């Protein structure tokens, strides 16, 4: 597998060596079974010969599972503790790092809209995988999920009719363009690319778990560099700043919720 990862760096500049080995190995093995590839050397020769096939591999081995308003209490804390602080700024920049198909970006846009501050906000949404970025831009999600998202919405403290944010057509729900107007989508590789702006809020949920400790620390430093003083950082339910170099500069705003504020 090390040889395969080296090929990916040498040929395409994609560095997966800092990924957590157990989950990456599982994804690659699963990919090989699905595509009926007998061994790693065959996979290596296929990606070397064919850049499209390499892109296909990247799309399949990166995890793109997400939902709207996942962990509603996290979003309730954003509503109650984070947005009132952001509202005092003339201009708000939010970065969704590892945004996948965009469900969390639309979730945040709804919260910003309800706080009356979406107009002065920009939501930058990035992912390593160009295919999911294209999907995220459309704002179209499976209608079958709406019942669950609506429940999440209510638990997150939402008071409107959640269905007023989208229109359903057959089995798809398209979210209102007033939400996506403020979104900017781009591919960005947390491993290789640098900071591209100053933000007041960065969300990166359930991406760091795929990285080893060293890469986790490096990416957290990238977030630190990209955050304004007193900016906020939101992580996934099982992620934390523990053991990272930046822990001492941040303070968790509410016990139990994975949201930190930059203190220095």
């Amino acid at each position, binding site marked *: 597998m090390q040889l395969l990862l080296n090929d990916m760096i040498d040929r395409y500049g994609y560095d997966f060596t800092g990924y957590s080995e157990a989950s990456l190995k599982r994804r690659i093995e699963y990919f090989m079974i699905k595509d009926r590839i007998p061994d790693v050397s065959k996979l290596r020769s296929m990606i070397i010969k064919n850049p499209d096939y390499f892109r296909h591999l990247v799309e399949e081995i990166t995890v793109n599972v997400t939902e709207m308003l996942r962990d509603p209490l996290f979003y309730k804390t954003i509503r109650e503790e984070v947005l009132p602080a952001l509202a005092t700024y003339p201009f708000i920049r939010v970065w969704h790092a590892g945004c996948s198909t965009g469900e969390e970006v639309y979730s945040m846009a709804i919260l910003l809209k309800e706080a009356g501050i979406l107009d002065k906000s920009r939501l930058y949404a990035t992912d390593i995988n160009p295919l999911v970025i294209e999907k995220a831009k459309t704002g179209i999600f499976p209608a079958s999920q709406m019942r669950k998202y609506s429940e999440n919405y209510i638990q997150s403290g939402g008071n409107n009719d959640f269905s007023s944010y989208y229109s359903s057509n057959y089995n798809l729900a398209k979210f209102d363009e007033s939400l996506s107007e403020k979104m900017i989508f781009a591919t960005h590789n947390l491993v290789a690319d640098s900071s591209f702006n100053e933000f007041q809020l960065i969300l990166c949920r359930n991406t760091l778990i*795929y990285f080893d400790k060293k890469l986790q620390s490096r990416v957290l430093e990238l977030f630190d560099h990209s955050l304004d003083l007193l900016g906020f950082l939101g992580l996934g339910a099982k992620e934390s700043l523990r053991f990272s170099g930046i822990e001492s500069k941040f303070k968790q705003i509410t016990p139990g919720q994975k949201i930190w504020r930059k203190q220095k």
Partner: protein
Amino acid sequence: MAQTKINAGKLVVIGGSSGSLQVIIHILGSLPHDYPIPMLLIIHRAYSNDSMLLDLLVLKSNILVREVEEKEKIVPSCVYLAPADYHVLIEKDESFTLDYSEKLNFSRPSIDVSFISAAAVYGKNLTGILLSGANEDGADGLKEIKEQGGHTIIQHPDEAIVNYMPLQASYKSRIDEVLNTDGISRYLTSLIPA
């Protein structure tokens, strides 16, 4: 035989679904607080947001029970519970990695995911135990544990409240031992080094 058992005792992974909770509670209650071998519990849950399962196990177990933390090293005398809505994988350095990829067998955490991952790291030093359940999760995992030289156990289908899960496992691979709850407790006790 004794040698096999000592080998199989570096990590114990236990998977269960419906009908398994009372078995797990009974087993944990039967082991001493200083039970040395770390155990990983993969239990299917109906609701993803509840902490009740952890609270209940902490209450009923003599051994320290905690939810798996990301990148945490596995240490002796600890029972680790897979968190709701994450798969648990094990790295070569015997630490945990959490994973939020697709459900497997309609389950996250999936028993197969953890069993297969543990088998790759622990090989013959692993015991896999599969309990009551209405799902085929865990059957491929036990097969893999067996293929990597580990020791496999299923709850006796006659005792299991829902026997589908242990039965599926018995169709997919040769199981080392078919035990009832007390038998599983005795097996785990026998792993304690003299």
